[in-house]
């Protein structure tokens, strides 16, 4: 993942405290409400946790220079992915698009002009995430982009625990003895990108790079990962970060 700059690590041990403190301090009503919703206990079995898959398409990889273009959200549990409760928004990134990202995303200035600003849908988005544990594939996009974007608009950012299906794959394929052995042999690392990861669990190929489809794909991937590598009783604390 070239172009991702190193970021301060957010550790899981202090999420409850962090939420309590933010709920206390928050000036913005929507954020106050968001942080006031109780987090599940870290010991809760994953099968008991209400989840929500989140995916964003952005104009680039650096939240300081790039913006969010679209957001897809699909609520789910280990038992069911609720497509009927899906949400999807196209939004206007605040920073002017550079020509390279126009070429990459096929998005023109006039097109962007028609979309609402993230500000206009932010309360809805926070509402959709509230009380559910967010699941993403590669948190280093969703987390900093959302934090930065919210900070710019509301004067305070937003951070929350996430389950990152990519890092669950990385644990299996990048951090094991076997992975080190492969590396030592000079084999290419196993791909942990969404499509390749799904393929390993027999999940069908979907058209990528659409925030809603990718959110659905991520939810399915987590169900598969839990089914194969964990159990419904696996406590939340060993999955989130």
């Amino acid at each position, binding site marked *: 993942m070239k172009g991702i700059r190193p970021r301060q690590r957010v550790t899981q041990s202090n999420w409850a405290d962090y939420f309590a403190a933010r709920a206390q301090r928050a000036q913005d009503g929507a954020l106050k409400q968001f942080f006031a919703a109780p987090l599940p206990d870290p010991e809760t079995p994953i099968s008991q946790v209400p989840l929500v898959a989140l995916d964003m398409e952005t104009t680039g990889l650096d939240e300081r220079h790039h913006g969010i273009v679209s957001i897809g959200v699909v609520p789910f549990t280990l038992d069911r992915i609720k497509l*009927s409760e899906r949400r999807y928004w196209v939004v206007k990134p605040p920073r002017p698009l550079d020509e390279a990202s126009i070429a990459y995303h*096929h*998005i023109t200035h006039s097109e962007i002009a028609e979309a609402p600003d993230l500000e206009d849908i932010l309360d809805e988005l926070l509402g959709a995430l509230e009380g559910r544990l967010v699941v993403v594939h590669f948190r280093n996009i969703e987390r900093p982009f959302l934090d930065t974007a919210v900070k710019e608009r509301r004067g305070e950012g937003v951070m929350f625990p996430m389950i990152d299906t990519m890092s669950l794959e990385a644990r299996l394929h990048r951090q094991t003895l076997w992975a080190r052995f492969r590396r030592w042999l000079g084999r290419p690392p196993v791909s942990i990108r969404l499509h390749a990861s799904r393929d390993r669990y*027999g999940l069908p190929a979907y058209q990528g790079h659409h925030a809603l489809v990718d959110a659905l794909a991520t939810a399915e991937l987590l169900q*598969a990962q839990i089914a194969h590598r964990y159990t419904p009783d696996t406590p939340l604390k060993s999955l989130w970060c």
Partner: protein
Amino acid sequence: MDVELLEIRQHMGQFPPFDGLSDELLDAIAGQVEVRYFKTGSDILVLNEVLNELCYIRSGAVEVYRRKGELYNRLVEGDIFGHFSLLRNHKVRFPATAIEDTLIYFIPDSIFQRLCEEDDDFADFVELERPRLETVAEQQKKSNDMMVTRIRRLVTSYPVMVESTTTVQDAAKQISDAQASAVLVIDDGNSNPRYSFQDSEGKTWQMCGILTDSDFRTRVVAEGLSPQTPIGDVISERLITIQSDASIYEAMLTMLRSNVHHLPVLYRQRPVGVVHLSDIIRYETHSGLYLVSNIFNQSSAQGLAKLAADVRAAFVRMVQEGANSQMIGSALSTIGRSFTRRLLELAEEKLGPPPVPYCFMVNGSMARNEQGIVTDQDNALILSDDFQPDQHDEYFQALATYVSNGLDACGYTYCKGDVMATNRQWRQPLRVWKSYFQDWMANPTPEKLLHSSIFFDLDSIYGEDHYVEALQDLIARTAPTSPLFLAAMARNALNRTPPLGFFRTFVMEKDGKHNNSINLKRRGTAPMVDLIRVHALACGSKAQNSFQRLNDISQTQLLATGVSDKLSYAFEFLCMSRLRHQMIDLQEERTPDNNIEPENVADSERHTLKDAFQVLSNAQKFLTFRYPVPAQRQGR
């Protein structure tokens, strides 16, 4: 619905019983689906559990068991299970287990019940409790039917799309990479709302053209263009598309009518795939379409004549597969037109280019797109007004003779009334044709019109279409204000009447070998066509097909409310009866004709035929009342 769920909709739409559903119902399902992943070996449905969802296998494989553990069925991608329980007490009767890693789409009971109510085929599919194989065999038969199978069924991959600024070289490479044979060209304009759609990022695009393999040859290489030419510069302005829920048959007709081999398939305005002629041919090798493409591949009149048997086979198949008379009439007319066109092409190859422009006109049933299997040829030539008989007629006479002989060899017998382009009277420049029609309409007598009414069904099939259009315009302009003409046409429309006392006093034709039968054309469909034509002329309709004419008529006050619907049903029934009996003739290796034998008429058919004759008879009575001979001319 939002386009995002296309992924799900597209998948379901390929499999029965979903493949027959409208796009609208498919959307309703896709939006309500719930999803769950099952690892190999895990239970999906457990005996006696409460079940409130239909299960659809998106990927993987599932085994279904009987109560006692005996294997009931093994299902794969696109199959459904759980419907027996939904139709009964919502308790699982057949437990199910994933035998591979499986992704299930759950369809809520409320949607399932709605599908059963709104779609009969869906209800039939799920309600019959019998082994899947049997259902599939029947479904197979049904889905072979090009008339009901939707074109999206043949769409297997997303279309290759490039922006209009892409170089032709790059586009060619993308086509090769995707193993496609055409590329859709899009740009970010929005001049044509018909083709504008949003991509996954919400950006609006519009499809502005298509470039096919052969276009690369003809438009790029043959023109000596640089590989760096932007693709937008070489595409044609003309874009022919089809909606994803149109039938394969409609797609086929669209290809033939527009003479294109690739059709972009749209879901609303969004391109979802491209079908090629060969996709359809592969799907349905014995179809009319295959036949048509075969017609255009023949290099001689002899080769064409050999295809006559295939026409009959295609006809039998269509009747058996439950096509209605409009579909059959239209398909057979398309085939007839293709024969004629090909013969004209061959004639031009042989005789050289025409000395002056011309239009090859067809009349009668082919012009109405109502051709049957027993048909003669009715055609004529409209020549440019530059036509000089002494210099040019030799050419056109030869052309007409070649085509007419060729058609006869293909089973389209010579016209007994000599309405053929070989007849010098019907091989005339446009201005002469105009004077013919003006004379028929201005100075009509029933006798004069008796043999010329056939010209009031007219269509172009080759050459200068606008010659025929000019005549159609002339008729539509003049006829409504020519009461004498309408009266004469109406009187002629009464020359042939339907039998009335059908049961005990079965009216037979007394002329020769058909004593025990009734000629359904002479006593049914033909008087109906005549009658509809009179009303169509009176309201200035330019439609040629009888059903379309009835549509136009129903927009006017000519007939009482509901009468045109009645006529339409009666006509459809008469046509189908005739076609069905011709099919029986063919199957029993008799020469098909227009007669029906009472022993081949089922009780229900007798009943309905009688009703149809009654409708025709009433409509004929109304005709004399509606188009009376104007008073001052009476007695002439």
